[in-house]
């Protein structure tokens, strides 16, 4: 599939660089977002990365008042995409460390999951904590990261019956993905641990702990350290 721009609405455009989940395509999305952000024209409200796409949201009032036309923004996007090949390599991503207390009450599915995968609990922790993850995008809920880079040996089906209440900060595995629940709610992922960090807090600047394109590492912590960080967050 060759990169192309489609309209997402009267006031938003979607640039697609591919149609699959692929680290190289996603890296291209973040490189493009970085490039666009450096010289963002007036009237652009949001740049939103997907796995292999980037949405550009225009100020809808500016479009309605005839000050901005999606067509013009489309041309600007295509020009920037064409420049991308010749541009210098994107800067190395920021690495965010997420402390995780694995197993026990914080990760009730760790032991059954390990047994199912034919691994020990320690091996699951070791493999999960050794991963170099990349935040492909945020979505589903504010601050929720879609991560690339889970060890394929840890892939496991979701629970047949989702839990009604998953605590905020829970770290889970669902299919070939791993992620962190930003807040309490229902969920079907296999819970292997929990972080005391708050992923999203509207009173914080920036409100999300993690940004799209970040590199991410899980760092195992003991339950005493979890309790300490939980008190001071």
């Amino acid at each position, binding site marked *: 599939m060759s990169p192309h721009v*489609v*309209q*997402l*609405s*009267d*006031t*938003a455009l*979607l640039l*697609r660089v591919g*149609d*699959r*989940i692929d680290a190289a395509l996603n890296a291209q999305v973040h490189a493009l977002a970085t490039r666009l952000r450096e010289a963002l024209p007036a009237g652009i*409200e*949001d*740049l*939103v*990365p*997907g*796995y*292999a*796409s*980037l*949405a550009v*949201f225009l*100020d*809808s*009032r500016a*479009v*309605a*008042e*005839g000050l901005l*036309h*999606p067509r013009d923004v489309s041309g600007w996007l295509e020009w920037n995409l064409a420049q991308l090949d010749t541009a210098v390599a994107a800067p190395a991503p920021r690495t965010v460390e997420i402390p995780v207390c694995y197993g026990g009450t914080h990760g009730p599915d760790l032991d059954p999951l390990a047994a199912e995968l034919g691994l020990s609990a320690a091996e699951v922790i070791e493999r999960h904590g050794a991963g170099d993850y990349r935040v492909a*995008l*945020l*979505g*589903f*809920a*504010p*601050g*929720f990261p*879609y991560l690339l880079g889970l060890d394929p040996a840890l892939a496991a089906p979701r629970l047949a019956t989702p839990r009604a209440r998953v605590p905020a900060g829970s770290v889970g595995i669902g299919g070939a993905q791993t992620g962190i629940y930003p*807040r309490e709610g229902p969920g079907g992922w296999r819970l292997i641990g929990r972080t005391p960090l708050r992923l*999203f807090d*509207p009173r914080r600047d*920036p*409100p*999300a702990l993690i*940004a*799209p394109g970040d590199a991410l590492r899980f760092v195992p912590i003991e339950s005493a350290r979890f309790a300490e960080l939980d008190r001071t967050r």
Partner: protein
Amino acid sequence: MSAPRIEVLRAGLLDTVQDLGRPGWRALGLGLAGAMDPWSLEVANRLVGNPPGAAGLEITLAGPRLRLRRAARIALTGAPIEALIDGAALPAWRPLEAPAGCTLEFGACRHGARSYLAVDGGLALEPVLGSRATDLRAALGGLDGRALHSGDLLPLTPSRLRAEAIRASAWWIDPGHDLDLSRTAVARFVPQHALADALCRRPWRVSATSNRQGLRLQGSALAAEAGGDGVSEPVAPGVVQLPPDGQPIVLMAEAQTVGGYPRLGYVAQADLPRIAQLRPGEHLHFEPVSAERAVALLRAQRAGLARMALAIDARLRSMGHAPGS
């Protein structure tokens, strides 16, 4: 003198504080939210002399009972609704001045699904990330990110408005041309998928499971493609998604920021206020238009609103009591 507030004596079905939404945070997974029918909210704000994006109350299907704790200029727009002020009929689509202590009693919407109440100065809640809109899914904004409860107090800005008695203006806005709820809703739609043609040829009915996030439609199922559970990509209000059951969803004000279902196209933004007024069980038709035509519709709607705002401002000035005077 008590603090300037509105007291919620009895909550309605789903009353939320809304403005024109919270742009700027979509990359973090936080969507726009804001009024489902932003056209009606903007007209209500204009009628009380507010900026278009001031926070007002969105009332859904059946409304609350409220008490004004300061003299206020108010306006009611959107879906026609049973409404009384101190026991007398409360006329819609016009400014009305009311003394402190008045009780507003809302019943059921007669047609449509969402009514809007604006108060001079706007509902003065603390903005969250630049907006007072309630985002129910993210549980933030408005009043603690939730719908109103009985006993809540909504802060107002201080005002020097004096009102000895209830006084409604003799003039009003006729919304009939812009928001015609008497005819079957038609959503002008920009097709972007092989199934879009079938979407436009079949009638759809609004499911009772619809909410501020999306209108769920029911009808003869569209054949969803095998392997259609695609790669998550950004979505926007107006986008029509097709889940595996073949029953389309029109994303609305509180749309999530990304989705993995196939996209059939999008509804012209100018038609979102009308379809936000659809009630469960009502019918909706899609009519294909070009992307260019959809933008033209939005521009025409904005131009009409600008003309209306000028006319309203002139009337408010001639009444001799613009806000703060």
